[in-house]
């Protein structure tokens, strides 16, 4: 059963995979322009061009090793492009000086796959970290906002004094979301937000992502394998395919469109992924 998204798509650009900044056309918030990332001369992403508009909620899906996380880390400037460029609000991320790049990152919120909470700090200090790091807030305001955000993600005030190791996976994920949104960023990037969680907690996380989007004017990028999350939260889906499995000349971006169109996409690889069918993959892996 395909679920309808809980909202109207903010922006749909079916030709965004080939979008180029042109005169007279309004720029997207994030633009990948012929992006290529290679490790040890092995390209993981090659010639990726796409535009993400302000307010969109994008799910980046694809098999393991297709470069989803690399794409996301490039967006945050954690990985530098081998060639091509990534622009945010018209600024080329790889051309920015470190200080400006650090300032720009404060406009992003990032939810890591395993939350990446700092073990040495309490939950309160973890959530307060971005506020304290920005040096713009008095400690009273930090305190009230931390407690407010913990409440928003459904965590009791008693967790504030605990350490990350004392919390369950779902609680850590929610702390990660609270930390990512505490500065009310323009873009929130979620890396596999529901991986490793039970179905109920996965849906709680989905609800939280929808809640964040409804509460703030935020652009969301969700890297996920979870088709339920994709259908429920995203209004645009990008599907990447591993470079090693592509034939010569084939584009790496297999699909770019609304979630509802995935089932009926003429490319069998897309529908196979959506339905979670192994097909002949086991034989290929064995061979």
């Amino acid at each position, binding site marked *: 059963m395909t679920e309808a998204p809980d909202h109207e798509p903010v922006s749909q650009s079916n030709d965004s995979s080939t979008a180029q900044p042109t005169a007279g056309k309004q720029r997207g918030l994030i633009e990948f322009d012929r992006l290529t990332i290679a490790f040890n001369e092995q390209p993981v992403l090659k010639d990726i061009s796409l535009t993400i508009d302000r307010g969109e909620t994008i799910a980046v899906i694809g098999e393991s090793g297709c470069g989803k996380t690399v794409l996301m880390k490039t967006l*945050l400037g954690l990985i530098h492009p081998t060639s091509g460029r990534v622009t945010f609000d018209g600024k080329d991320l790889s051309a920015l000086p470190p200080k400006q790049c*650090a300032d720009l990152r*404060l406009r992003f919120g990032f939810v890591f796959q395993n939350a990446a909470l700092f*073990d040495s700090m309490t939950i309160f200090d973890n959530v307060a*970290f971005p506020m304290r790091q920005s040096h713009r807030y008095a400690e009273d305001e930090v305190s009230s906002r931390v407690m407010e955000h913990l409440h928003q993600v459904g965590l009791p005030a008693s967790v504030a004094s605990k350490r990350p190791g004392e919390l369950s996976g779902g609680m850590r994920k929610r702390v990660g979301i609270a930390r990512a949104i505490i500065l009310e960023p323009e873009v929130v990037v979620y890396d596999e937000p529901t991986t490793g969680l039970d179905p109920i907690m996965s849906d709680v996380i989905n609800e939280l992502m929808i809640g964040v989007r409804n509460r703030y004017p935020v652009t969301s990028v969700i890297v996920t394998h979870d088709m339920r999350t994709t259908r429920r939260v995203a209004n645009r889906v990008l599907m990447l395919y591993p470079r090693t499995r592509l034939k010569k000349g084939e584009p790496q971006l297999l699909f770019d469109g609304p979630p509802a169109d995935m089932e009926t996409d003429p490319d069998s690889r897309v529908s196979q992924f959506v339905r979670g069918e192994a097909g002949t993959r086991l034989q290929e892996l064995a061979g």
Partner: protein
Amino acid sequence: MSSTVNPSQDLPPDADSHPHAAAGIHASLHDWVMQWGEAVVEGIRTVGDIGLFAWNMLTWLFTRVPQRGTLLVNLYSVGVLSLPVVALTGTFIGMVLAVQSHHQFQAIGMENQLGKVINASLVCELGPVLAATMLSGRVGGAMAAVLGTMRVTEQIDALTTMGADPMHYLVVPRFLACVLLIPALTTMADFMGIVGGYFYSVYILEIDHAAYLEHSRQAVVGFDLFSGVLKSVFFGAIISVVSCYQGFHCRPGAEGVGRAATSAFVYSFVLILAVDLVLNIVLNRGYYYYYSFSP
């Protein structure tokens, strides 16, 4: 027991086999040169990487003051928590020196001069190296393991995404803690070694108290204390830079973290001894050069 001898084994290889043998030798030589070449290139690259890492850290050190909270935690961890172990090992080393030296000095009737060798060895060499060794084992390994775990669990990436530079936030406080507190730890190792050596010599080996102190006073001058403490500052810098580098470049998984911690200790220790040699040569020459011109 009968044995079958293959006559061809004793004969030289025939003419046709020469090209194959030559090709085999050539191939193995080629492989050998390739492997060594790769190892040398990798070594040079690592040294360059560590140099850039240290340069980056120094740039941060002189551009922004580290946060008080992170600095205090590291000062406590490096200084306060290392103090007992450094004091204890210093005491034992002083006593061991007394035990080892006593027989040899007794054989030539110079046991009253035991204080000279014990205290000069401790202040010039053993105190600084011992304190550095304990620090690289206790603190360096822990630094590499903590930073390695932070790398593997994406906590270092998380710092970056929240506008904090990991070099400024994680490395600079550790560097400062090591460099600022290793002189104090070295002095403590020296002091406890002197106390341990005195105790064993005077109360167990029954060396004359006054002679022991007089010879100790003659053997150790202010420059010895200064050179030992100065060397320790270099050792502290080596421990922090090498350990943080290993942590930052940790490979994924538990094995990667373990390897980072081990490498941090091994590389720090080897570098400490190599730098100790160079500094001893430089300081000795400086000492004799200075005193040859002083009135």
